[in-house]
C-alpha cells in the first residue's frame, strides 16, 4: 500500500461540540483534529460518553459542530451527502420494506428503475450472501443478517466513505468475527474509506489501519496508533506478538480513561 502521499478525504479541523441540556451546557468534544486519507480504515475507541457517536454524526452531516470545520474532499460538510454512507448500531432497516427494497432504496433515489435497479441491489445482496432472502422482511432475519443487509444498503448508495457506529455491538462473538472478516474483504475489494466506532479493542486492531484513542469527556483525541500488521488478518493474528503488544498498549490507555470516567 502506498505511504503517506494518499489524498485526504476527511479533514476535521479544530472541532468543538457543545450540547445544550436542561442542566446547562455539556462540552462533548473539545479541539478535535484529524485527517483521514483515502482507503484508510480508522477505528475509534474510547470510554462511553466520550463523543464518538457525536463525531461520527458530524462527519455524516446529521449534526453540526459548535466550533471548527469538517471537510470532506476539501468541501465543508453541510448536511448529509451521497459520498458518505452510515451503518447504525440498531441496523435501522425500514421494516415495511423487503430486504431487496431496502437495498434498492438509495439507487432508486439516485434514479435507477426497473431491471437495472433490481440487478444493482442484488449485486450487493450477493456481496453479503443474502440473495435468497431478497423477498423477506427485516423481522424475519437474525441480528447478524439484519446488519449485513444494512451494510449492503449502505454500499448500494456507492459512498466513498463508510461511517459505522458500533455496527457489530449487538451481535454475538461468533457472528461478529464473521462479519469482521467479511467487512475487511469488501473493504479491500471496494477501496472505501472507513470510519468505524467500537468498544472492542481486539475488533479495532483486527480491522484498522489506524486506531484513534479518545479521552474521557470532554472528548479529545488522545493518541493515534498505526496498526502495522499486514492484511489479511485472521484469528491467528490475534495470537501474534505484535498484535498483543498493540492491544496491551491501547487497552492500558483506554483503561486509564475508564478510570477517569469513574472518578
Amino acid at each position, binding site marked *: 500500500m502506498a505511504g503517506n502521499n494518499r489524498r485526504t478525504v476527511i479533514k476535521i479541523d479544530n472541532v468543538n461540540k457543545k450540547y445544550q441540556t436542561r442542566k446547562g451546557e455539556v462540552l462533548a468534544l473539545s479541539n478535535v483534529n484529524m485527517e483521514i486519507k483515502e482507503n484508510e480504515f480508522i477505528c475509534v475507541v474510547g470510554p462511553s460518553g466520550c463523543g464518538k457517536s457525536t463525531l461520527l454524526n458530524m462527519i455524516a452531516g446529521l449534526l453540526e459542530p459548535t466550533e471548527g470545520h469538517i471537510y470532506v474532499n476539501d468541501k465543508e460538510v453541510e448536511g448529509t451527502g451521497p459520498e458518505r454512507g452510515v451503518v447504525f448500531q440498531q441496523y435501522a432497516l425500514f421494516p415495511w420494506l423487503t430486504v431487496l427494497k431496502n437495498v434498492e432504496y438509495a439507487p432508486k433515489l439516485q434514479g435507477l428503475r426497473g431491471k437495472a435497479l433490481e440487478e444493482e441491489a442484488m449485486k450487493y445482496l450477493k456481496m453479503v450472501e443474502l440473495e435468497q432472502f431478497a423477498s423477506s422482511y427485516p423481522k424475519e432475519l437474525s441480528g447478524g443478517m439484519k446488519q449485513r443487509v444494512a451494510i449492503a*444498503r449502505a454500499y448500494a448508495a456507492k459512498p466513498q466513505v463508510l461511517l459505522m457506529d458500533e455496527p457489530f455491538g449487538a451481535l454475538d462473538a461468533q457472528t461478529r468475527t464473521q462479519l469482521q472478516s467479511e467487512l475487511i474483504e469488501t473493504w479491500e475489494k471496494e477501496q472505501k474509506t472507513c470510519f468505524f466506532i467500537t468498544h472492542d479493542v481486539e475488533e479495532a486492531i483486527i480491522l484498522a489501519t489506524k486506531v484513534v484513542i479518545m479521552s474521557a469527556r470532554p472528548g479529545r483525541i488522545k493518541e493515534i496508533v498505526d496498526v502495522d500488521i499486514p492484511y489479511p488478518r485472521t484469528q491467528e493474528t490475534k495470537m501474534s506478538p505484535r498484535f498483543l503488544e498493540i492491544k496491551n498498549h491501547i487497552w492500558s490507555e483506554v483503561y486509564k480513561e475508564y478510570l477517569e470516567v469513574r472518578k
Partner: protein
Amino acid sequence: MMKKKKGKIAQVPSWLWMCLSLLAAMALWILIATSEAGGVIFAEPWEVVQTAVDKIRDGTLWGHVGISLFRVLTGFCIGFILSIPIAILMGWYTPFRKIVEPWIQFVRNIPPLAYIPLVITGAGVGEKAKVIVIFIASFLVMVVTIYQGVCNVDTTLIKAAKVLGAGSKDIFFQIVIPASTPFILVGARLGLSASLTTLIAAELTGASKGLGMMIQKAQGYYDMSTVLLGIIIIGVIGLVMEKFIRFLERRLTGWQETTGAQ
C-alpha cells in the same frame, strides 16, 4: 387423558366455536326473556326476528340503517381525512403543536352530549349537526392516536433515509407515513367506535330517522323488541367495521416485529 382433551379442543375449528358462542348467547337470551324479572326488559328472540321482518317489509328498517350509516361514515371520513395532516403537523411543527394540543386535550374530555346544543344552535337540527358531532368525536380520538404514532417514528429511520439521500418529501411519504400506518389504523378503529357511540347522542338532536331515533321512539311505546333490534344492528355494524380495519391491519402492517399494533 388431559393431553388428549387439550388436543381435541385445539382441533375444533374457529367457526364452530363461533356457532357455539352464538348458540350459548341465544340460550342465555331466551333464559332471561322467559324469566319473570328479565321478561319485562327482554323480548324473546323470535319477537325481535318478527319485528325485523315487519320493518323490512314496510321498508322502514333500511331507512333507519341507511341514514345512520351515512351519518357515521360521513362524520368519520371527514374526521379521518383531517386528522392525518393535523396529527402530522403537530408532530413535526412545534409551534403548531404547542398551540393546538391543549385545545384537543381539553375538548377530548368533554362528552359529545354536552356540546350538542351548541352544534344545533349553529348548524340547525338537520343532517349537518349530527355529522358535525360525530366528526368532532372521531376526529379527536384519531388525531391524538395518530399524533402519538408520528411522535414515535424512530428517528434513526429518518437519519438512515437522510444519509441514503432522501429529501424532506421522501422522508415524509416514504418514512413517516408508512411508519405511522399502525397508529393510523388503530386511530381509525378507535375513531369508528367513537363515531358509533356518538351516533345515538347525535340522533337525539331531533332526528326523524336513524337507529338511535328508532330505539328512542320505541322506548316511548314500550316496544322492547324494536329496542333490541336496534341495539343488535348497531352491534353488528360495529363488528363489521372492526373486522374491516383488522383486515387492513393484517394487509398493511404485517411487517411489524410484534403482532398487533401498539
